[in-house]
């Protein structure tokens, strides 16, 4: 239901060709679309308003560079401001204190505190080991001895959950004493951490509503006792307008030093990130990207900005692909995409990878300009079985045919269809799909080489005036 902002602006600016500077009327028209796009991405209304107010003066009178269109210009201004508001650069955790450095985890029920606690602890105990490339840096590059303690005496078996996660991750947890209350658990945890020579103590708290005065007072008491260096607000990327209320309340009552955004591997647009950042002024430090213990990443503002604007996230796509495809395959694929050589062999291996990677739909959502393909797939009911059938069709081709699909004419199609137990029209469909993918890949590849502006142009609907 969400179309990319680029496409929407394309329509708005279809009428405006080759003007020198953006007029006030042009900008207002465009910003109306920006507003809707941000709201649909769950950015809180108050934040949207501030955002628009800040972008407007930047956009009015901005010279439209010769090679771009007004729509592209506005998108660029919006994008840049969004990145700036999201914090510009990645931020790591602060451990500049006398050990044990205390990290306090707070948030609503079900936001993912316990899982995030274990993930962060795991990451810290790993140190530089097992880090993928530039995935983590700064304070994460040092191996630390971590103790985790759960103060959640509300949710049944919450303490046990952390204990089990600790066992799985190889991170120490404070032994559970039944019926012990949060403050005395904290006291015991501090002592244990000191005595045991731990570098970091992570305190996982019970989920609480920001408006629950009693529970907020309780966590404030824990804070006063433990004096955390980091107080991380854990929030779900799927959060709607409430993000701003929750973030403000936690920041005012507890004092937040950073935000952990969870379930970023879902298909939510993640507008909550912008809302919370804007309201608290605190950086988003980490994002949760899966259920596994190592599914934790540092936050890259530009990637979330693209996602909020519905403009795809090519870097995440490549990284996600790299998780399942091995590095070498990924390099090969990237090279092929770059050259626009994407043959049926690649498609076949892609089909296999796609099944592993957890869904074509999710993956396509990350590709710029793929909204159409995604819709086509949804309507065509593309499912796992179809993926397997398409693989079968490709397997029925000769290696030569796979490298050079153009040579596949009627009689070859009949042979291939018979070989795969399919109809000729299925073969046609596959070939057409491949051709479309190839076209898409060619568009994607320009992102890296010709830069941001160019890629925007390619996202505009056909017939959209270019430079």
């Amino acid at each position, binding site marked *: *239901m969400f179309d990319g902002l680029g496409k929407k602006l394309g329509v708005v600016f279809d009428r405006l060709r080759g003007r020198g500077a953006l007029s006030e009327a042009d900008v207002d028209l465009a910003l109306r679309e920006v507003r*809707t796009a941000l*709201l*649909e*991405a*769950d950015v*809180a*209304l*108050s934040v949207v308003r501030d955002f628009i107010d800040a972008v407007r003066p930047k956009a009015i009178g901005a010279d439209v560079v010769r090679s771009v269109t007004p729509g592209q210009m506005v998108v660029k201004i919006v994008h840049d401001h969004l990145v700036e508001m999201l914090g510009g650069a990645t931020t790591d955790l602060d451990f500049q204190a006398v050990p044990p450095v205390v990290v306090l985890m707070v948030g*609503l*029920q*079900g*936001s*993912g505190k316990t899982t995030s606690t274990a993930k962060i602890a795991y990451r810290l105990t790993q140190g530089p080991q097992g880090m993928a490339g530039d995935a983590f840096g700064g304070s994460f590059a040092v191996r630390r001895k971590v103790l985790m303690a759960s103060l959640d005496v*509300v*949710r*049944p*078996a*919450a303490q*046990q*959950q952390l*204990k*089990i*996660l600790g066992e*799985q991750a190889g991170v120490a947890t404070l032994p559970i004493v039944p019926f012990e209350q949060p403050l005395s658990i904290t006291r015991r945890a501090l002592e244990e951490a000191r005595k045991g020579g731990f570098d970091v103590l992570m305190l996982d708290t019970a989920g609480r*509503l*920001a*408006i629950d005065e009693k529970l907020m007072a309780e966590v404030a008491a824990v804070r006063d006792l433990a004096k955390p260096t980091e107080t991380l607000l854990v929030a*779900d990327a*799927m*959060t*709607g*307008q*409430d*993000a701003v*209320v*929750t973030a403000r*309340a936690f920041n005012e009552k507890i004092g937040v030093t950073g935000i952990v955004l969870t*379930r970023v*591997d*879902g*298909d*939510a*647009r993640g*507008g*909550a990130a912008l809302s919370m950042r804007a309201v608290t002024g605190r950086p988003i430090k980490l994002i949760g990207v899966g*259920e596994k213990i190592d599914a934790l990443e540092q936050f890259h503002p530009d990637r979330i900005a693209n996602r909020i604007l519905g403009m795809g996230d090519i870097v995440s796509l490549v990284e996600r692909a790299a998780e399942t495809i091995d590095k070498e395959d990924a390099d090969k694929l990237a090279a092929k995409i770059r050259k626009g050589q994407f043959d049926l062999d690649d498609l076949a291996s892609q089909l296999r990878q796609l*099944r592993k990677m*957890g*869904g*074509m*739909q*999710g993956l396509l*959502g990350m590709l710029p300009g793929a909204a159409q393909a995604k819709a086509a797939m949804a309507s065509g009911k593309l499912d*796992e079985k179809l993926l397997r059938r398409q693989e079968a069709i490709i397997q029925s081709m000769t290696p030569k045919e796979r490298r050079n699909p153009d040579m596949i004419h009627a009689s070859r199609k009949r042979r291939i269809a018979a070989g795969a137990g399919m109809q000729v029209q299925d073969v046609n469909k596959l070939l057409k799909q491949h051709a479309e993918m190839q076209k898409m890949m060619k568009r994607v590849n320009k992102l890296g080489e010709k830069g941001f502006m160019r890629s925007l142009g390619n996202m505009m609907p056909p017939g959209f005036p270019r430079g």
Partner: protein
Amino acid sequence: MSEPKKSWFGRLKDGLAKSTQRVTQAITAVFTKKKLDQATLDELEDVLIQADLGVAVADRLVSNLKRTRFDKEVTDEDVRGAFAQDIAAILAPVAIPLAIDPARKPHVVLVIGVNGSGKTTTIGKLAKRLVEDGKSVSIAAGDTFRAAAVEQLKIWGERAGVPVMSRDTGADAAGLAFDAFQGAKADGTDVLLIDTAGRLQNKTGLMEELAKIVRVIRKLDPAAPHSCLLVLDATVGQNAHSQVEVFKDMVQVDGLVVTKLDGSAKGGVLVALAERFKLPVVAIGVGEGIDDLRPFDATHFARSLMGLETAS
């Protein structure tokens, strides 16, 4: 399900009161002006958007108001009443409680949703309600993924006085569901509640696993699960659309439960969902206590959301 009338509304209102406050204040602030003009309408639209109703639904509600009352002198109460009425009209058709078919023994209820939406807690509360209704209930702890999920559900089972079938973490959820179904059948249990692991709707593998659970229990009864409830967190924004759409596609969801309505989130996306998917909202969660599951009442919900006293 029997429920003392005044108590349920009291509890709901308590829960919603905090959510409501902001909406009410905002609307009241708008109506110091009285005459309904475009600026006022724009502000009203903002108020609805802040309740997560979404741009499209907010647009429609506001244009409806514009059509009927534009340029007229209106009071704050008028406008809130009109909105409440319109919202209630959208929600009324979906306010359908969970119907347990007594002929099925057991009536199988599959509970699904994304991670952290409140499935396990909802099952605990639901079990208690059904027991109070005189039904015999058993629970299958189908979240075999999350650490200590089984232990969590077992505690809820104890509180509700209901047996919980479980297997080790990592076990096959479909197999557990099958065995629990067979066991409940043999015992002549009225209701079997099946918990599932939380899953994001864009994870194809996990969604397939869910489809498998349904496939497997259908081997015992082609009509099972007799109810498939999707649990939604009230704090969720527009992603709720995607959640309902995908889960519905995968396993024929036939009811929604909205949780955490006692927070500051308004769950306004429910209005848009009701309009688009027309799925029954069988219950709402308003707290962490075992009694904090309530039937969904469209008028009360709409009026409470708009900060109005109930007429009844």
